[in-house]
């Protein structure tokens, strides 16, 4: 394959990257192309190798095999500082003994940038991030959100091509997290830099990403834009990983029903009318049906078939109300409007929106 042509039109390209810690293989033959100006989120559960991949891109870890290109240049063996990257860490990693200003300018001073230029850049970053009043403080005198802003500023002043974020918001509380999320989004909209963002919070991934790469044990499971990931997960893992509460899975098989195909689980059949399959569905195949909690209607006749269920637990969450229902031997979660309340034990009718459901092969776990 011709490497150079593939590489040229993307900001960061990773080719056949493998990384082992001793005998443990953490990244396996990974390929990834990130477009210029793209916001790519690496999403995966703890220990799947997200940080490892990010550290490889940053040059903080040496790849065991493979190559990394940034802006078309092979940087596999470059020092971190020569890669044109800036990095923001979960623990902020501010230099505790330096003021905010010193923190911001440290990289520039190391690179012997003239003082005037340093001042200009620090001032600009401080303005963008609205941390001008904090410049003389030490990190210990800042709140978590302010610290994270300074950490971002440190990457900002260095005028880098690629921003790398390693779970930058995990240490903040929920409220601050959602505020800073918006700020990062806004920052990306105004800077239009390439950003690679590691998180295990799917809300962050869904809201921020142009594309999401979902990882599991060092392998990218799906790389797509958030809507596709959410609505058309490529396999069972992605389907279950994204969405809170999880997609409801029903194990069963395909059966003939009239002139079409239906799904049957625990003796109950579900019409598959409206499902957009990738391949012709064969009766007898063992499959898993996945339906998101918000794609089930309760006591609202949507025109399709209806199923009986019993309310097991109700979890009011303010805007929404999450119901855990017992239905044909499964427990199923359903999201309804927060204003609608049910009693535990109440009998309800469900109808499924099959157009938004997913079907997976029970063996290969791939989407049908």
């Amino acid at each position, binding site marked *: 394959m011709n*490497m150079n042509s593939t590489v040229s039109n993307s900001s960061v390209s990773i*080719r056949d990257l493998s990384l082992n810690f*001793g005998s443990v293989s953490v990244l396996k033959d990974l390929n990834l192309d990130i477009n210029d100006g793209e916001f790519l989120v690496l999403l995966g559960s703890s220990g799947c190798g997200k940080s490892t991949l990010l550290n490889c891109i940053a040059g903080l870890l040496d790849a065991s095999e493979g*190559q990394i290109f940034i802006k078309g240049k092979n940087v*596999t*063996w*470059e020092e971190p500082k020569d890669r044109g990257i800036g990095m923001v860490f979960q623990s902020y990693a501010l230099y505790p003994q330096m003021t905010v200003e010193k923190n911001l300018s440290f990289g520039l001073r190391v690179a012997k940038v003239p003082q005037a230029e340093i001042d200009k850049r620090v001032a600009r970053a401080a303005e963008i991030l609205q941390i001008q009043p904090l410049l003389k403080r030490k990190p210990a005198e800042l709140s978590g959100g302010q610290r994270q802003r300074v950490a971002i500023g440190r990457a900002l002043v260095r005028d880098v091509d690629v921003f790398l974020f390693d779970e930058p918001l995990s240490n903040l509380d929920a409220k601050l997290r959602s505020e800073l999320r918006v700020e990062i989004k806004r920052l990306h909209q105004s800077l239009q830099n390439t950003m690679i963002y590691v998180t295990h919070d799917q809300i962050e991934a869904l809201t921020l990403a142009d594309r999401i790469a979902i990882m599991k044990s060092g392998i990218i499971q799906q790389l797509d834009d958030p809507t596709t990931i959410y609505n058309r997960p490529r396999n069972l893992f992605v389907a279950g990983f994204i969405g809170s509460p999880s997609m409801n899975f029903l194990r069963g098989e395909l059966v003939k029903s009239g002139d079409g195909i239906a799904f049957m689980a625990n003796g109950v059949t579900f019409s598959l009318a409206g499902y957009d399959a990738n391949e012709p569905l064969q009766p007898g195949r063992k499959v898993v049906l996945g339906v998101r909690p918000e794609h089930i209607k309760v006591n609202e006749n949507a025109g399709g078939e209806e199923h009986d269920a019993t309310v097991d637990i109700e979890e009011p969450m303010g805007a929404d109300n999450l119901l855990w229902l017992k239905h044909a031997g499964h427990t199923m979660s359903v999201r309804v409007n927060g204003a609608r309340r049910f009693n535990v034990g109440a009998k309800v009718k469900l109808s499924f929106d099959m157009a938004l459901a997913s079907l997976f092969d029970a063996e290969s776990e791939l989407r049908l």
Partner: protein
Amino acid sequence: MTGQAQAGRPSKLLRNLNAKIASIPMILTALVIFVGGTLWTVFYSFTNSKLLPRLSFVGFDQYERLWAAPRWVTAIENLALYGILSLIFSLVIGFLLAALMDQKIRFENTFRTIFLYPFALSFIVTGLVWQWVLNPDFGIQSVVRSLGWTSFTFNPLYTPEIVIYGILIAALWQGTGLVMCLMLAGLRGIDEDIWKAARVDGIPMWKTYLLIVIPMMRPVFITTIVIIASGIVKVYDLVVAQTSGGPGIASEVPAKYVYDYMFQAQNLGQGFAASTMMLVTVAIIIVPWAYLEFGGGRKRG
């Protein structure tokens, strides 16, 4: 994979070059002094070098003589006794003091300073002071006798059977403060919730210490044992200052045997053989530990 793309790979040796340069003193020390010196010593222990090292090999003669020497056997016995007792007592006393100090007491700083200050003093000083305090004609014995209990006898330094305990008293005085500090640091590192959970469970305090906290402090105990043990093996100054190995040879220790035979008896071969034996003993204790702690693929942090 095109060859051109792979070309940038720099030589392995040059990566991390600064770190390697900075580690040169360490590497030299490790290789030249510790490994080289040790091998040199082991090597010459098979010669009959006298005042100066010379290459006339005598096989295991030095070792045979060593193990036939009553003084060496006494020294080894002393070291074993002293080592075990001082390990046990330092840990027990150190831990008890730390546990007491950990009860949110008043004057914590004062107590800690009192327990720790002997550690600032050299073994020479420690030995001299305790020689003085334990002196039968001036110290504790004479004071108690002068109070009317005339048959009172406490003369460890001049009684061969118990002289090692006299040394132990001084060693504990000098060293337990540091053990207490280490233990205290360990105790302070225990999750507060554990204490709370134990209280809610209704577990008495001593049981909490014994069954929960102490097992949790394993790393601290290991560090402490390493520090104490490395001191025990080397014990020399204290004995020299306090008893000079006496009375007779009752308080001899291996390190002193090594020194005496290397320098006073001008029999390097014998001294080297004795130090090799010490090394073997140390290795038997240390190597498994070092392997567990530092080898064995332990993760960073």
